[in-house]
């Protein structure tokens, strides 16, 4: 029983109940309640009526017996009957009450106008009963059901003779009646029409009506409500979730998942959320891809693209499978390819040679097994290792964070040829310089030791030693000055102190300084200056360095018994100092080079003579600072002529433009 009840309850409370069942349940429930209500009402009515009938019957019986007992004169009888009828009517709440004789004549009635009339009504056709008879009939006249009671009354009724004499005194009549009455036993009928007034029985069953109706309605409402709630539970759960999390949906769809139930609708909802999340993530990914593509697209055209294409470094950005995401103009040139933006080109599949191939090799060698790149920087030469003219590039690989395009890296290519050349030249210079420095030092040391050893007491030898020491010391100090000027020139910190300079004396002083060197090699050193020479604004010390360098070179690179001539000329705007020798000369191809830092002519004869490669560089820089210029005329094996042109005034504008030029070197 309990199980049955449980089952029923479960079924009643089930989440999903077939629709027809729910509906029929409700309908049958309603129907049941309706029937009960109806039956209830009817029953109550019947009972009420029955009760009323029985009380009526009792009253009628009593009335009938009292009517029979009435005695006396005709008028008394009349009055008494009337009285009984009135009593009954008041008690029983009737509409019509009359006493009718065999001829259908009304003997007594509560409606006094009926007395003496012949009684005919709609119920008259009924056969008169033998005993008290109750009937409920519908009266057309009245328009409502009527309870009719017929009861036979056996009474003695004296037939009254109507005296037509005019003399009608009550006493006379009475006497007459009394004298002439004949007693005839006769049967009359009591005709009672009961019309229940509105408030007699209706009160009873009206209440019952209301209560039952209310109960039914409540019951129905409850059922409907309960069923709805049950059906809506899943939906409400979803609704709750949405309400509480609607502001945070974008952050995390997970918030909308329902964890504490697993009916069909909840599961479907959760699946929907999961699907939405997946879609959202996929969309994000595509969006990122799109954005990246968009950025790259935008960067293709526009200021950024122009800027990237015009910088002197090569930029190459590759992603998964060496797919080229971007490559600027310079890099395209270096790799020897043109990039078709629309086509997706992979570094793997391009046919590259030379530099391009080397770069690709380098890129591929940095890739780990997971496809990630490692950072690396190498110098790659665009050509054979021995090739002096080939450019060298510093190729740097920098991995990128994982993006929509996968693991990528950016490769930059910077031309470091000049830097390498300078570095190498500086290295050579330092090596050379130290070597150069060591030579005079060795001499000084050796000769100093010789002197101190006292091994040689020949005065000539001793003098020789001192001379060598002095000369070498001077040589050393000159060398150091040279090195210093070079580094100063590089920094740009050389200062030109402008004064009035007498070129004539400058030239003769310089010649005197180098005469010793010239004499050693038996070189004829000639000085030719005009009688009158104007002063110029210059830095005397720096200019003397220039002349010493030029003269020193001339002597150095001229074999013994040669000739070196230094001359001086003046024109309108400038002074020209010329140093001419008949030494080994400089091939035209080296004319520019010999003026560069640490560079000497590419000539074995030159190499065999010690030199640092900075003399001419220093000289030119100083001359340029003065607003002048040095030029060379020379051929290999045919001596050299150097011309120094100096303006009279070192103007400020000139100095400025010189500074700019220097910075380009």
């Amino acid at each position, binding site marked *: 029983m309990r199980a049955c009840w449980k089952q029923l309850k479960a079924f009643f409370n089930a989440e999903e109940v077939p629709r027809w069942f729910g509906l029929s349940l409700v309908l049958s429930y309603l129907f049941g309640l309706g029937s009960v209500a109806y039956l209830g009402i009817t029953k109550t009515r019947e009972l009420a009526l029955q009760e009323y009938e029985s009380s009526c019957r009792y009253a009628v019986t009593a009335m009938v017996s009292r009517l029979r007992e009435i005695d006396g004169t005709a008028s008394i009888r009349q009055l008494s009957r009337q009285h009984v009828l009135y009593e009954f009517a008041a008690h029983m709440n009737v509409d019509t009450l009359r006493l009718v004789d065999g001829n259908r004549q009304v003997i007594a009635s509560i409606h006094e106008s009926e007395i003496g009339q012949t009684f005919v009504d709609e119920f008259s056709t009924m056969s008169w009963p033998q005993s008290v008879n109750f009937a409920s009939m519908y009266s057309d006249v009245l328009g409502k059901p009527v309870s009719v009671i017929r009861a036979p009354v056996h009474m003695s009724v004296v037939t009254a003779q109507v005296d037509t004499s005019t003399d009608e005194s009550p006493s006379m009549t009475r006497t007459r009646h009394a004298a002439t009455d004949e007693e005839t036993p006769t049967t009359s009928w009591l005709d009672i029409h009961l019309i229940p007034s509105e408030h007699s029985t209706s009160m009873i069953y009206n209440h019952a009506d209301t209560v039952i109706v209310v109960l039914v309605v409540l019951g129905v409402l409850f059922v409907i409500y309960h069923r709805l709630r049950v059906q809506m539970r899943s939906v409400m759960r979803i609704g709750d979730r949405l309400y509480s999390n609607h502001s945070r949906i974008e952050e995390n769809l997970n918030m909308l998942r329902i964890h504490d139930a697993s009916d069909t609708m909840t599961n479907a909802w959760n699946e929907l959320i999961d699907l939405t999340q997946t879609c959202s993530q996929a969309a994000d990914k595509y969006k990122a891809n799109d954005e990246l593509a968009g950025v790259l697209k935008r960067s293709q055209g526009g200021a950024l693209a122009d800027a990237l294409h015009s910088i002197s470094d090569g930029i190459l950005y590759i992603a998964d499978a060496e797919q080229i995401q971007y490559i600027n103009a310079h890099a395209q040139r270096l790799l020897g390819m043109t990039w078709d933006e629309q086509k997706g080109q992979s570094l793997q599949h391009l046919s590259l040679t030379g530099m391009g191939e080397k770069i690709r090799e380098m890129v591929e060698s940095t890739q780990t097994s997971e496809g990630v790149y490692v950072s690396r920087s190498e110098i790659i030469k665009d050509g054979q290792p021995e090739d002096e003219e080939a450019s060298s590039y510093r190729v740097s690989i920098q991995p990128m964070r994982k993006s929509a395009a996968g693991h990528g890296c950016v490769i930059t290519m910077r031309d470091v040829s000049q830097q390498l050349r300078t570095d190498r030249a500086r290295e050579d210079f330092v*090596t050379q310089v*130290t*070597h150069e420095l*060591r*030579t005079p*030092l*060795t*001499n*000084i*040391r*050796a*000769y100093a*030791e*010789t002197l101190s*050893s006292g*091994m*040689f007491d020949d005065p000539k*030898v001793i003098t020789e030693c001192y001379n*060598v020491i002095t000369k*070498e010391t001077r040589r050393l100090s000159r060398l150091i000055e040279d090195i210093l000027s070079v580094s100063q020139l590089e920094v740009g910190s050389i200062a030109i102190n402008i004064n009035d300079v007498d070129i004539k004396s400058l030239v003769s002083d310089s010649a005197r300084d180098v005469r010793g060197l010239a004499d050693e090699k038996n070189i004829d050193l000639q000085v030719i200056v005009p009688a009158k020479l104007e002063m110029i604004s210059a830095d005397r010390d720096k200019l003397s360095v220039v002349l010493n360098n030029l003269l020193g070179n001339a002597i150095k690179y001229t074999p013994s018994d040669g000739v070196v001539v230094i001359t001086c000329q003046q024109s309108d705007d400038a002074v020209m100092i010329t140093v001419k020798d008949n030494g080994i000369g400089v091939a035209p191809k080296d004319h520019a080079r010999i003026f560069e830092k640490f560079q000497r002519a590419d000539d074995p004869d030159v190499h*065999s003579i010690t030199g640092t490669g900075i003399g001419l560089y220093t000289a030119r820089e100083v001359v340029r600072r003065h607003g002048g210029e040095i030029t060379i005329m020379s051929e290999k094996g045919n001596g050299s002529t150097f011309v120094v042109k100096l303006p009279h005034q070192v103007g400020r504008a000139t100095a400025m433009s010189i500074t700019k030029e220097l910075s380009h070197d």
Partner: protein
Amino acid sequence: MIRILLAEDEPHIMRIMHMWLERHGYEVFDSANGAIALARLRQEPVDLLITDMNMPEMDGLHLVRAVRDELKLTIPIIFLSARCDQAELMQQLAGLNVNLRAKPFTPSRLVDDISRLLGDQPSLARSECTE
């Protein structure tokens, strides 16, 4: 008399070495570069060779190679170089059995070296780049 051949392009150095060695009783021959030195060696033998690195025509390295490989001479060689710190040079001289000395040097030291190399005294380490 012990014969020593000098190969040096710097005249002052040459002169001082010459003076010192002669003073110590050696017979000294000068050659201004490697080629002259080699030619001389071909003609007459010497007991010791002192050579500089940087010389025109033929530098010290080539000279020493020629002496060892071509002339197959086993005479002691003193190699003077201002570039003693070059590992490359030392590598190149590795198999040639020379005594490497740094410049600047002191003549007295040089003389000691020579006497050790030629005499009974134990010689210094082969390639010693010391003062």
